[in-house]
């Protein structure tokens, strides 16, 4: 084993700490074999831990999404997952498609079974990184029900107010769409106005743009959908 003169086999503590070992001439297949075996073992180990961790990670993501849906739809009695298939919403994923890869929206119902509104996800670049959010949309009255930011890496203390500033977040309960962002105090009281955050203009604008863009894409589908299945 020690024939290849690797100085790494020293046992004593009196070896130099700095300075690389002397070069040696291991055959090429040995180099490749070493790395291949090490890579294979590393892969096996990672797969084993992944098997354990993945269900927990997915369960947590589902939990977070469920809480966000309940928040933006103001605690619906229940909600359905709807799949966006082509230009229609369906309760069941179309045959031959992978449900995980389809876009989804969530339709909430109140205690009497009447639809409250849709929860829709959207994501677009903010100031530093992609802002991902969920908003509630009342298709019958074309107005927003609420908004919560799922993921954002905006500037701490400034841009991250889009998550924490309750005045801003509450501003998304009620306005009609498409939204218009206004500076605080500059609004004229129009129903489509949302107050932006001073010091977080770009982040505020990004949130408003995400919602407007998503509704432009998917709004017609939501307004055309009738939960009973009839026209």
């Amino acid at each position, binding site marked *: 084993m020690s024939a290849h003169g690797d100085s790494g086999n020293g046992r004593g503590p009196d070896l130099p700490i700095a300075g690389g070992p002397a070069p040696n001439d291991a055959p090429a297949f040995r180099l490749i074999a*070493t790395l291949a075996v090490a890579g294979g073992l590393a892969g096996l180990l990672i797969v084993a831990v992944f098997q354990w961790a993945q269900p927990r990670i997915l369960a947590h993501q589902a939990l977070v999404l469920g809480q966000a849906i309940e928040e933006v739809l103001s605690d619906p009695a229940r909600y359905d997952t709807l799949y966006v298939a082509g230009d229609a919403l369906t309760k069941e994923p179309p045959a031959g498609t992978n449900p995980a890869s389809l876009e989804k929206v969530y339709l909430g119902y109140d205690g009497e079974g009447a639809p409250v509104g849709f929860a829709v996800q959207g994501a677009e670049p903010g100031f530093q990184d992609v802002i991902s959010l969920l908003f509630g949309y009342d298709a019958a009255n074309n107005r927003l029900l609420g908004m919560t930011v799922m993921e954002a890496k905006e500037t701490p203390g400034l841009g991250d107010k889009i998550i924490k500033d309750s005045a801003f977040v509450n501003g998304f309960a009620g306005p009609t769409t498409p939204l218009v962002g206004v500076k605080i105090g500059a609004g004229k009281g129009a129903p489509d106005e949302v107050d932006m955050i001073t010091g977080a203009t770009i982040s505020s604008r990004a949130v408003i743009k995400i919602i407007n863009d998503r509704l432009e894409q998917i709004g017609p589908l939501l307004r055309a959908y009738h939960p009973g299945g009839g026209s």
Partner: protein
Amino acid sequence: MKATTPGQDLLRGIWRENPVLIQLLGLCPTLAVTNTVANGIAMGLATFFVLLGSSLLVSLLKRLIPNEVRISAYILIIATFVTLADMLLQAIVPDIHKALGAFIALIVVNCMILGRQEAFASKRPVGRSVLDAVGTGIGFMITLLLMSAPRELLGNGTLLGHPVMGTHFEPWIIMILPAGGFFTLGAILLVYSWWKARSEEDVRPRQWPHGVLPGKAA
């Protein structure tokens, strides 16, 4: 190079050769994730786990790893442990994983870890390598705590998420921004160097003027 005792191997990384304060390694996570104490602790633990696992394996396998591909092999070992740490954090503490973001994956390129493998674990017995990894990991953790405690306290008015500064405290937002990281690191390095220089001076006999201590005067 002098021989070291096991105690020295353990303690060296904690204070005298602290990875951040003396070697100035691992500055990227030190600056980036220390805006809250919880993030600092999580990053410290993740790095500790990776360092300990890598040192153990590199030291165990040092005779099986050919010299020509040793760096690739070390990186492979480190990357495996980082991937494990990443998935474990995501499964166990998802909120902290979210806050640390890409910096968990970037532990792979933390030169503090690769440095310990190349400089120490690849040349020493397993026990010494583990001691060295534990010492270095603790030293890194101490630095992250030194960085994150004042930053969270001043920048957010909280410690570990608990408000401690009272309602009239206006947070110094700059302390949790990147600039605050540089300020804090600069201040810590200043104090540390000053303290170190002072303790070295103490070793020399004092030069009293006017021969107060006979025999010692210049």
